């Protein structure tokens, strides 16, 4: 993803969070995302789905970018534009190969590997790449307020 892809001229910042890449912090992060989604006017199912997507994205950072060390930061930017909510998850770990985050075939019954599948299926757009500064990874996701548009 290019730096230009992260420019969102018509979007307004709702909140910016910085927290350690630790699973124990996720309950707090989910509460913030839940409140932000409701503020944007999403119904309870869409709100649940947005919370799930952010949770899975942060889980990928904890497990893959920082490999469970828990000492790196995660940045979560939440923005709102007239027609959608935008969520951007940034880490400062080594590059994660996109293949690591590929969704798996659902026909195969095995534990694990569902996180990226959930993200791609509940959000309208997902863009993964290196951060504009060249350090870390960025996942930017958005969800339309009106799914029929």
């Amino acid at each position: 993803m290019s730096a230009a892809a992260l420019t969102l001229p018509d979007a307004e910042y709702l909140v910016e969070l910085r927290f350690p890449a630790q699973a124990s912090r996720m309950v707090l992060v989910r509460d913030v995302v839940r409140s932000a989604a409701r503020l944007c006017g999403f119904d309870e199912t869409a709100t649940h789905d947005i919370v799930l997507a952010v949770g899975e994205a942060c889980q990928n950072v904890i497990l893959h970018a920082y490999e469970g060390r828990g000492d790196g930061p995660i940045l979560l930017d939440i923005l709102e534009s007239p027609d959608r909510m935008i969520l951007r998850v940034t880490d400062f770990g080594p590059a994660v190969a996109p293949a690591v985050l590929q969704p798996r075939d659902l026909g195969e019954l095995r534990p694990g590997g569902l996180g990226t599948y959930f993200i791609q299926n509940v959000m309208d757009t997902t863009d993964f790449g290196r951060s504009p500064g060249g350090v870390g990874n960025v996942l930017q996701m958005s969800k339309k307020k009106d799914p029929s548009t």
Partner: protein
Amino acid sequence: MSDTVREVNGNLVVRLAGEIDLDRAPEVRRLLLDSVKRSLDVLVDLSAVTYIDSSGIASLVEALQWAKRRGTDLCLIAVSPEALRVFELARLDKVFAIHPDMNAALAAGN
């Protein structure tokens, strides 16, 4: 709210509660696998689960696989709307036997 295990009519009812995420999945996994190892049919009550993600789902899938290997059943009962949404997204609502409540599960032979 805490997770509980009790025996009902020769089955184990495992009641999970709260938010099951990467932080809690290891303890849930241990509880489920310990229950499956008792070689009884296991009914997992998800009525009090308010959030579950891929790590929680992975624990349930692993427990189901262990139950199948041991020749016992593992089913889900009273699945909360939040948990059901995730099972549907993963298309696991067709893989797990899901019953509206414990009586329905017992009547179905679980």
